[in-house]
């Protein structure tokens, strides 16, 4: 009898709890040049998601490198002299430059003249000449950006330079969304800003979220591996989404600031797992540019981020902190070291 009463009570409570934990999901198309999706559980989810989307739109408006009205556009237009910006734009530029220095320029927010030259996604992509690349390279360099904390001034040292936070702004928006969730007492959810994932809290019952990593093959929407995470960002950079092909060779959108050409080091994708989505976003680009060997060594020293590197040979290499944490879900891929 006691067991029967206990079982009934548990079922009642479980049914009641799950009714209160109904998921609310919504999507925002356009800002940050992507589709943003937020899934939350709890009674106030709709209002919190609206607040997140308002913040994402605001970040896009002020930090877009494309819009003529953004603060970033003002910095680029005012190259050669200081331009005063808002405190969060200043802080993000400062963080971007710090990561540039740490990665010896593998991540570089001044890469825009090179990206503009290649013009991926325009429909007019072409392989620039060596002279054109050299000319564009003369306009980049993170060390040529100076900051003045007292005036919140950002200076690019010569005309033609441009600042682009595209490699870090989605991560920053993700962290901003997390702050909004925390402020509003949200307990669990998934933030997905164009594939930049933040797994917030845990699933019902305290289990970690299961995040898949996109199969880095064009046209395939599945995932090749999974990992369990809570309160972590998972961000991927890969050569499979934006590219063009010429003479059997693929030219993708992740440029190596040391060559002015698409990074070419045998990688298909790099995924970074970190508490900070801002860091994860920037380091996924940096580690892709560095390549598997240098990238893993860099992460092993840095310790606040872990990485999954996928080579063109479908080998999956992990940074030390992820060993034993990643499960392969697609038989075409294999963890390095496994037969």
């Amino acid at each position, binding site marked *: 009898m006691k067991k029967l*009463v206990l079982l*009934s009570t548990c079922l009642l409570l479980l049914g009641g709890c799950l009714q209160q934990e109904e998921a609310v999901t919504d*999507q925002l198309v356009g800002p940050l040049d992507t589709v943003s999706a937020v899934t939350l559980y709890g009674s106030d989810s709709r209002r919190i998601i609206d607040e997140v989307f308002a913040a994402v739109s605001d970040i896009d408006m002020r930090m877009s490198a494309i819009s003529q009205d953004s603060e970033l556009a003002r910095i680029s237009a005012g190259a050669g002299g200081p331009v005063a910006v808002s405190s969060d734009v200043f802080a993000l530029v400062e963080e971007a430059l710090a990561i540039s220095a740490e990665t010896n320029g593998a991540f570089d927010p001044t890469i825009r003249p090179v990206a503009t030259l290649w013009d991926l996604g*325009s429909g007019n992509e072409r392989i620039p000449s060596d002279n054109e690349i050299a000319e564009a390279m003369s306009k980049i360099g993170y060390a040529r950006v100076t900051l003045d904390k007292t005036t919140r001034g950002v200076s690019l040292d010569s005309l033609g330079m441009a600042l682009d936070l595209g490699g870090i702004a989605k991560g920053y928006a993700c962290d901003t969304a997390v702050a909004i969730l925390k402020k509003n007492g949200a307990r669990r959810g998934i933030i997905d800003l164009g*594939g930049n994932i933040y797994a917030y809290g845990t699933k019902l019952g305290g289990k970690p979220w299961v995040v898949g990593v996109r199969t880095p093959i064009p*046209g395939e929407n599945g995932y090749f591996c999974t990992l369990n995470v809570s309160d972590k960002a998972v961000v991927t950079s890969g050569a499979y989404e934006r590219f063009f092909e010429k003479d059997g060779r693929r030219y993708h959108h992740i440029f190596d600031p040391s060559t002015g050409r698409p990074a070419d080091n045998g990688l298909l994708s790099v995924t970074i797992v970190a508490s900070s989505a801002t860091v994860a976003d920037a380091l996924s680009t940096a580690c892709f540019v560095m390549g598997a060997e240098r990238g893993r060594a860099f992460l092993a020293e840095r310790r606040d981020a872990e990485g999954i590197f996928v080579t063109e040979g479908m080998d999956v290499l992990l940074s030390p902190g992820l060993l034993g944490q990643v499960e392969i879900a697609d038989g075409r891929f294999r963890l390095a070291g496994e037969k």
Partner: protein
Amino acid sequence: MNRRDILIIATFLLFAGVWGAVKLVAGFGDARDAEAVAEISVAGKIVDILPMSGEERDVSIVGALGPLTVRVGSGTAYVAASSCPSQDCVRAGKITSRGQCVACLPNRALIRVKGGATANANSEVDAIAE
């Protein structure tokens, strides 16, 4: 409290438990059983909703930049052709599960799967980092 009182309370709790279990199962069932449809919107306005079952058929829509062809059927939906310069939406491939979406940003077009099984139910992941 005599034996009869305990029996009444136990009976009540049993019915309550069964009710809770029914709601639990019904909740999951709702999510799984609704037919999967592809909802197509442009600039936030829904322009078509199509069942994803049956043979593949093409739907022509007008985006912010120009025409798009969305192919829906055999449990999938994808952008078969687009007027956008980057063709990222065409390369994005097929979507199959509730919650998945594919967008053509220059055309401000979004195709998303509603109803049917979640990617969760099929693949046991809560999100895909890409």
